[in-house]
């Protein structure tokens, strides 16, 4: 199961990174969101994968799932949303002002491959 979990995180991270390296804003934002899912899963797993653990104290269940990564990831999810929102609206603003949705701010009328 660990291998499966790790593979999933890896694939999500790889897909997210590939998108983040694209040239247009929307795929980059989607990629960053995907990347943040991978990071959240990764962070969450640092507390171990607990099946059927108790969520609250006094539940009577077995071992407790590590609460610390959960607390970290919980805020990370919310902040991640704020950042996604900020970057996508920044992208819209750039398109409105510059007229292009290329991350380097290239004009629409001269679409060109960035030489990097």
């Amino acid at each position, binding site marked *: 199961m660990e291998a499966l979990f790790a593979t999933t995180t890896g694939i999500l991270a790889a897909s997210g990174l590939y998108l983040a390296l694209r040239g247009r804003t929307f795929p980059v934002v989607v990629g960053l969101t995907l990347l943040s899912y991978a990071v959240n899963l990764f962070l969450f797993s640092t507390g171990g994968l607990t099946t059927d653990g108790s969520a609250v104290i006094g539940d009577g269940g077995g071992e407790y799932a590590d609460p610390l990564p959960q607390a970290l990831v*919980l805020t990370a999810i*919310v902040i991640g949303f704020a950042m996604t929102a900020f970057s996508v609206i920044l992208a819209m603003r750039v398109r409105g002002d510059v007229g292009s949705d290329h991350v380097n701010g290239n004009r629409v009328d001269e679409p060109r491959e960035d030489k990097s």
Partner: protein
Amino acid sequence: MSLLLIVLLPLLGSLLPLLGSNQRRHQCALLTAAMPLIALLVTLRETPGVLAGEVPRLAFSWVPALGLDLALRLDGLSLLFVLLILGIGLLIILYARHYLAEADNMPRFYAYLMLFMTSMLGIVMADNLILLWMFWELTSLSSFLLIGFWSHQSAPRKGARMALAVTGMGGLALLAGFILIGQIVGSFDMQTVLDSRDVILADPRYLPALLLVLLGAFTKSAQFPFQFWLPQAMAAPTPVSAFLHSATMVKAGVFLLARLHPALAGSQEWLYLVSLTGLVTMLYGAYFALIKLDLKAILAYSTVSHLGLITMLFGLNSQMAVVAGLFHILNHATFKAALFMTAGIVDHECGTRDIRKLKGLWRYMPMTTALATITAASMAGFPLLNGFLSKEMMLAETLETPLLGGLAWLIPALATIGSILAAAYSLRYVRNTFFDGKPRELEKTPHEAPFPLRLPVLVLAIVCVVVGLFPALTATGLLTAAADATLTMPAPELHLSIWHGFNLPLLMSAIALIGGLLVYVLRQHLFTFHRQFPARDSLAIFEGAVQRLVRFTQWGIDTLENGSLQRYMLWVVISALVVAGMSLMGIETLKGELAIQEASPLIIVGAVITCFAGLATAFLHRRRLISLIMLSVVGLMASLIFARFSAPDLALTQLAVEVVTVILLMLALFFLPQKTPKESSASRIVRDVLLAAGFGGVVASLNYALLTRPLNSISDFFLENSVPGGGGHNVVNVILVDFRGFDTLGEITVLCIAGIGIYKLLNRLRLFMPSSDSEGRPWSPDRYPMILASVSQSLLPMALLVSVFIFLRGHNAPGGGFIAGLVTAVALILMYIAHGVEWAQQRLSFQYQPIAVAGVAIAALTGIGSWVFGYPFLTSAFGHFHIPLIGDVELATAMLFDLGVYLTVVGATLMILANLGKVTTSHRPSKQKEKA
């Protein structure tokens, strides 16, 4: 306390001249002179005690974590320098009053000068290495201001920049050296360092520390090969040259050698590095002093030469040599400051400093001629003057040195050659300027300088003569005290006198004077010889080097920072890959010792769906809507994964966030192109796929390695203390609102700021509103779906009720402010979707910004509230209360904090989504603003 006065009075003095005006120059000069005069009197009051062997000290703790104390001392060495700085400083103030032209801003000049004086006093009195370094840097800065005082000219600006670059670089090296010494000794306290010679010399870090400290001292004192900045600094006004570049600042380097002599000297490295550098500098400076044509350049190179002499003496590892070095510091300061002032007078009265044009000035300025002759004779080492005494001591010491073993005779021989050159350039300075025919091509007819301009020179010339005639009476006490402070053992008994009988040093002195005369007579041959060398302009070389450096760094910046986000991402990813890959290579096996858990079929199916959706998001990214749908699948699966692995809070949060994220991206997609053009080249795609695969591989390996290793979590503390300490059974929520409440406060602040930032971004946003999709199909004219509208309206109270329930139970069961806030936000957004902005706007007619800000404020106030009860910030309290009808309820102040979180989340989320939605209608943020 008087020690503090000596340093701080000149600092106060740097503010006083600014009160005076440029017109009332007498008043300005008097105001400036008052403070150093008082400081000098304070010093003189301390003098008898210091000469008797006392060392007054004063210490305040300043930044203990850095080892920095405001610690001052006044031992013999400090006293020698303090008297020099304040004494010559006062004469310079008088001289500058009459030297500066009407157009020069005198208050500013005096302010810089006093700032410099403060920092110089700080160097010589510092009782802490870091404090010493701080004042050291201050002298570099204030001398930069002084050299560049005539900032409208190019030469002073360039000279100032060069001096700052060289001495500033040396200052950095010095700091590194001091830190090394501090690490060896374990303290930056001066006395501790001075007492730790054995520890320092035995440490392997001794050599690097010594090299760094010497780099600092040599750059400051213009030792070879850093001598080039000093002649360029002569572009400064002459009072500055007289004060900084002969009497004080350049002496800071040799002062440092003397100050750290007890701690660093005594090794072979010290002997060779210091004395040979000094010897080379002495000869180099003397040769160029003979050749230069500008009076100030002659004096500058002669200063370089004399500094070399002093450095050599400190390097010789002999006690008498140190005494000779200290004596020469005193003597050189007097005659060289005087000579600079005479050069300034000549410049002032004749309008040129070119030695080829000047001749026979004695007819016009007999007094100045007499003073220049006396002081130049002292520089040449003529008997009955103070320069003779220390020069003879120097020659005597070179005879004693074991340096170079069998070739030890070279040292006195070279020292004699240096003295010959010194005699020759002194003679040339006086004869070519003041005698030898009549002046030619002068711009104005010279006449004798006003008395106040000559007075400082006169005072210094008198000192030269008096010390030269009665050395035992005038200098012994001060020198013995200074030597006591510089040597580890009591200073040798001093017998300063003019006549020691016929001996070898006397012969060498005589050779120097006669040889100097010969060299002077035959100087034309030397000039002819020198003309064979191509002229080297050190300023041009330096500026060229600086410009090459600037071009190189600009090239580096342009290469790395080309304005392409993709390029930056590439660098970030590559460095992350290297760092993580390196540490992964460092572990022996990927799999740790933990047993692998069995994967159930359900989990396998879930993993496959997640992976598939993730890959599909990437592969179908050019069809943006489908990519977005795939992204939401990943988000939902993440929520399920959290639920599966016992994290219900996370699952709820993820679910709610997923909803708002998808709504947000759908809205954004409405304004952005529906499809991504195909523009990446094949090679670019291959590169990115490889990079992404590598990244994914590293992440997966890291995750696997982490999952199969036992972890040592600090969470046990939270589990144990959650109920007794935080009053809640849901540990995740207790961590958020109690244990790590400060983090959460920071996070909701970020959320609120992001919301406000988005609000501003949307303000006055002009976007093309598409009426059809990318394939030309018009958007549906049906405004809002009927069924959704009616269902959502009846769902709203229920949803709000659920959110209140989730909020209230959050402390003890999965839930809490974050989740409740998201649920509320989603419920309200459903209204916007189902009925449109117009409809919702009428019913929700309030702004969301104040809600978010109020949330942060409530959370912060809850934290501050604990101060009222005398507890640290964000301490929570809880208790059981009996409420009629409802029963026993456990209430905690953390719940108030959670309310803040709730409000922030609701406010920020709606601020983002509702405002984005409004862009589609006439209710744009900008229009609202204009109405208001």
